[in-house]
């Protein structure tokens, strides 16, 4: 297997367009967590012309961590199902969002907006939450504190292991991967 490519967030369109579905990457830098309730509020805020976090060239991780145990930066933090964020995602991509991290399939509308704008969707291994937490070096709540696990957090990560699940050229591992191993019985 090809060695994982090291990349740094935030990043621009050029880097996003260089990534292809199926490729493994190790992501370092600054990313934001946001899931269901935070997406709803974020989109409502954008409609009012506000945004609690920067979006241009940023990476959003669909995740709500477990509470940190004493002495830890963060609790276990794996991805949640991305499809639930689909209804909000096109709006965020229009505001310059560059990448998303989650698990599972995306809608056609999201994949299309990603190709149009040069964005990328990474898969993190669902359920590997204790392993992924080890890559988080700092964590701070930056918005919607009242949402508890669903609050928006800014994370500093090192070598977060990801797979390019869908790229900016229409490539989609969830669609292309399974047929290679399909056996009709």
């Amino acid at each position, binding site marked *: 297997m090809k060695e994982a490519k090291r990349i740094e967030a935030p990043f621009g369109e050029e880097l996003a367009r260089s990534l292809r579905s199926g490729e493994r990457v190790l992501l370092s830098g600054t990313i934001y967590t946001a899931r269901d309730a935070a997406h709803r509020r974020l989109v409502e805020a954008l409609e009012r012309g506000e945004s609690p976090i920067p979006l241009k060239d940023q990476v959003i991780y669909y995740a709500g961590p*477990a509470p940190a145990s004493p002495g830890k930066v963060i609790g276990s*933090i794996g991805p949640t199902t991305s499809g639930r964020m689909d209804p909000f995602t096109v709006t965020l991509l229009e505001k310059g969002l560059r990448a998303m991290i989650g698990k599972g399939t995306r809608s056609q509308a999201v994949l299309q907006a990603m190709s149009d704008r040069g964005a990328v969707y990474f898969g993190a*291994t*669902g*359920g590997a939450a*204790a392993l992924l937490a080890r890559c988080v070096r700092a964590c701070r709540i930056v918005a919607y504190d009242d949402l508890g*696990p669903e609050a928006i957090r800014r994370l500093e990560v090192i070598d977060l292991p990801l797979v390019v699940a869908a790229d900016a050229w229409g490539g989609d591992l969830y669609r*292309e991967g399974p047929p290679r*191993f399909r056996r*009709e019985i």
Partner: protein
Amino acid sequence: MREVEVARVEEAVRRLFLKMNCHMLPDVRTSLEKAREEEVSELGRSVLEDLLQNARIAADEEVPLCQDCGMAVVFLEVGQEVAFTGGSLREAVDGGVRRAYAEGCLRKSVVCDPLFDRKNSGDNTPAIVHFDVVPGDKVRLLATAKGMGSENMSALAMMRAADGPEGVRDFVVETVRRGGANACPPIIVGVGIGGNFETAPLLAKKALLRPLGVRNGDVRYARLEGELLERINGLGIGPAGYGGTTTVLAVQVEFAATHIAGMPVAVNICCHACRHGEIVL
């Protein structure tokens, strides 16, 4: 009558949820190890290796295997010769859940109102509790921390008897084909056949609590389990849904009597974070 303090139930519930959230069950580990040896996809093997390493980290650090520490489901089989003392049994179960989720730094994922305000209850209660009264003077607790990612991909069909085994197989396979990639594969599939609109899903959930690889005692249903396993793995969804030969670790079927006019079939999907445990008091 045998008296049982509800505080003992609370303590048992607490212990069960603390343990199951941080320690992968040995049968799940063995099954993942076997899958890692047999998986054809290289990327798939690396996903399986991540899951095994994740389990080692979770156990070493006593942190949850998955950030979604599930909704607490407790099956309580109460011997009819038992008298509970010292308070409410239902509150004791919630008390055990509350303490486990606070002490174990487990994520609280329950909202009180499902449709309107969706405010987090803050302590992962209420638990979902199923009571059953059985002969004897024992209390058996069967608990599971059920993640919603896989629960969301589950389904119920009110089928016709004429649909037969082929109809059941198609429905189960189609349910996994549609949602399997989102349910953190490799998954475990629980199937409940028969009963009523409410019993089939309960059977499917109970099927998930059986140790992996223990086949149904009825050879016809055991054969059905084997056929479903083959067909689902033939879908090629693979670890994490990236493509591969390991989509399901086990298919477990439970059945019950039903009405002459019907054949309910429920498919309850569980991710590899298959967390459950049992204590008898």
